Every structure is written in structure tokens, then in C-alpha cells.
């Protein structure tokens, strides 16, 4: 079970940002940008999967996660915790353990043969589910996972991610329209603040990152990526 403490939200965000920087999960590269799944060019990349290899950090993260969810939603509001394939699975397992709840995982698509299962684990009809992934960009994958869970008769009411990009303002509303409230621990803005406070990267790099965070589509257009977000996609 979790530590039964409720740290200040700002402290959580700053601490998580520092953790991600400490394990080199944060990558800034303006000269050779990354391409997001939508085709958006970006100078930032974060690898939250690295967190699973750091037991002290992941333990603290799960305490933070449980405290955020219990504080925001309540203590008895869920029947299950489901992890989205692939990166969401370990975080869902640890969070389910912290919250004292059953766990399932959801595949990106059914296997296509055999049982053709998309969801593994027992999930009761009508169950209230917390969907877990490592990060949230535009929420597109979460909506697909939630739709798969809904087909079993259960319902995703909330979704949790360690990290939320927070560069597309409409994401929380989009998730809410799909029936889910979004919870997270840190965003790019928290990372940026720590980087600035601690002079973690060259000033020019930080300037480019800030330009991107404030105008991702314009930055993308100027760096070989798409200049317009495809419909129904903001990632």
C-alpha cells in the first residue's frame, strides 16, 4: 500500500522532473529533431520507460501517483487498474499494488488469432477502471484503450500517466469527452523550470525547447515536420 502521505502537488512535479533528468530520460535535440507519431517535428523526447530500472525512484513515483489519484478522485472510486501496452503495464502493476486493486492490461489491438484477446486479466462487467500509461501527449492511445475496455462492459473513468506533455491545451477536454479525467505527475513545463533553475542545458537549447513548447506546430514546420496537425491527431 502507499505511504499515506500527500505531498504538495508542486513538490511532486518538481521532484518528478528532477528524477527524469537524473536518470537521463530527457533528451533535447534541436539540430536533429524527433518525429512524433503524428509527424510533428520536436526537439524534445522523453523515455519514461527508463524509470522502471530505478527502484527507489519508481517506488516514490507510485506513492506520488496513488496520492494524486486518491486526493483528486477518492479512495473507493476504482475496481481495477489497467495498463496500456507496452509501457503502461509495469506502472499499472505497481500502482494497482499501491492502491490494493486488481490489475489488467490492454493490448493495442487484439491478437488476431486464438482467443483474439485484447484485454488480459479478469475484468468484471461494470467495473470502474483507472487506465495507466507512462505518458500522455494528445490522449489518442488512451481513448483507444478505453474503447477496448468499454467493449467488456467495464468503464474507464480516469487515466493516469507519470508524464503529460501539456503542449496541446485541448487534451484534457478531449479525454473528458471520452469519459476520462486525466491525472499526471509532471509536464514539460516542470522539466523546463528545473532545467532553467539548475542551468542543466545550454541557453540556446533551452530557448529552442521553449519555442517548441509554446508553438509546437510552428516549430515543427520550421524543422522539417508537419505544418498542420492531421485531423483527430495532436501527438
Amino acid at each position, binding site marked *: 500500500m502507499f505511504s499515506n502521505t500527500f505531498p504538495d502537488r508542486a513538490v511532486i512535479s518538481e521532484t518528478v522532473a528532477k528524477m527524469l533528468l537524473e536518470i537521463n530520460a530527457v*533528451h533535447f*535535440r534541436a539540430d*536533429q*529533431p*524527433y*518525429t*512524433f*507519431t*503524428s*509527424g*510533428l*517535428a520536436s526537439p524534445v*523526447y522523453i*523515455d519514461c*520507460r527508463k524509470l522502471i530500472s530505478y527502484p527507489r525512484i519508481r517506488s516514490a513515483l507510485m506513492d506520488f501517483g496513488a496520492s494524486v489519484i486518491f486526493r483528486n478522485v477518492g479512495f473507493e472510486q476504482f475496481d481495477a487498474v489497467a495498463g496500456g501496452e*507496452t*509501457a503502461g503495464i509495469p506502472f499499472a502493476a505497481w500502482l494497482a499494488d499501491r492502491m490494493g486493486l486488481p490489475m489488467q492490461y490492454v493490448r*493495442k489491438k487484439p491478437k488476431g488469432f486464438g482467443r483474439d484477446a485484447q484485454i488480459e486479466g479478469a475484468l468484471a462487467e461494470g467495473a470502474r477502471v483507472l487506465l495507466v500509461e507512462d505518458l500522455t501527449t494528445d490522449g*489518442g492511445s488512451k481513448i483507444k484503450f478505453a474503447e477496448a475496455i468499454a467493449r467488456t462492459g467495464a468503464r474507464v473513468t480516469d487515466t493516469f500517466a507519470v508524464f503529460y506533455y501539456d503542449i496541446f491545451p485541448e487534451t484534457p477536454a478531449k479525454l473528458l469527452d471520452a469519459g476520462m479525467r486525466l491525472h499526471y505527475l509532471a509536464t514539460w513545463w516542470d522539466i523546463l523550470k528545473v532545467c532553467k533553475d539548475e542551468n542543466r542545458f545550454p541557453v540556446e537549447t533551452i530557448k529552442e525547447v521553449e519555442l517548441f513548447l509554446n508553438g509546437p506546430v510552428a516549430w515543427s514546420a520550421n*524543422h*522539417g*515536420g*508537419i505544418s498542420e496537425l*492531421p485531423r483527430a*491527431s495532436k*501527438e
Partner: protein
Amino acid sequence: MFESLVKGIVEAGGGVRAYDACARTARSRIAGEPDNAAALLLIAYAAQRFVDAYDDQPLTVETAAEELDNITSIVTTLDGAFKGGSAQAKLDAVNRVARQIAGVRGSDE
């Protein structure tokens, strides 16, 4: 014939979602185009390989451009042979693309 599949990738941003849509479109066309089934399946396979490779991995703009060149070359080869080519030309194209997808370099490459 098949160029619209690459055009779709470009128009949809050239990222994982664009390739995923391409793979699904190519597969969905197989039922209605039995004579093009092998070519469409290879295109679907090539697009799905991109999705599997980069869905949860960093993809640089540079690599994305290389991957687009790669699938464009695959589609161009198949399009050239299947658009009125002989049965032998089609078979040659299918084998050439299959080798390309498998990463095998032949004497004609």
C-alpha cells in the same frame, strides 16, 4: 495504382499513425483487388514494420525521411510491375520487394 498509399503517408504527416493507416488501407484493399493481393500485402507488411519499429521508440526527422524513401521505392517497384506488366515482371517485383523488406541485398541492388 499504389501511389495513393504513399501519398496518404505524406499527407498524414509521415509518422507512425500515417504508416498505420497505410497498412490498414493496403490490407483492406486486398479483398477487392485479388490480382494485386501480393503487392498490397507486401506494402502492408512494410508499413506495419515501420509502426512496430517506431511506435514507442524515438524517430528522428532524418530517419523518417529515409524510411519514406524506402517505402516509396517499394511502392514504385510494385506499381511499375503491376500496372500492366507481365506475370514475370510482377513476380520479379514481388521477389525484389520481399528481399528489400527482409533486408537482403541481391546482385541487382
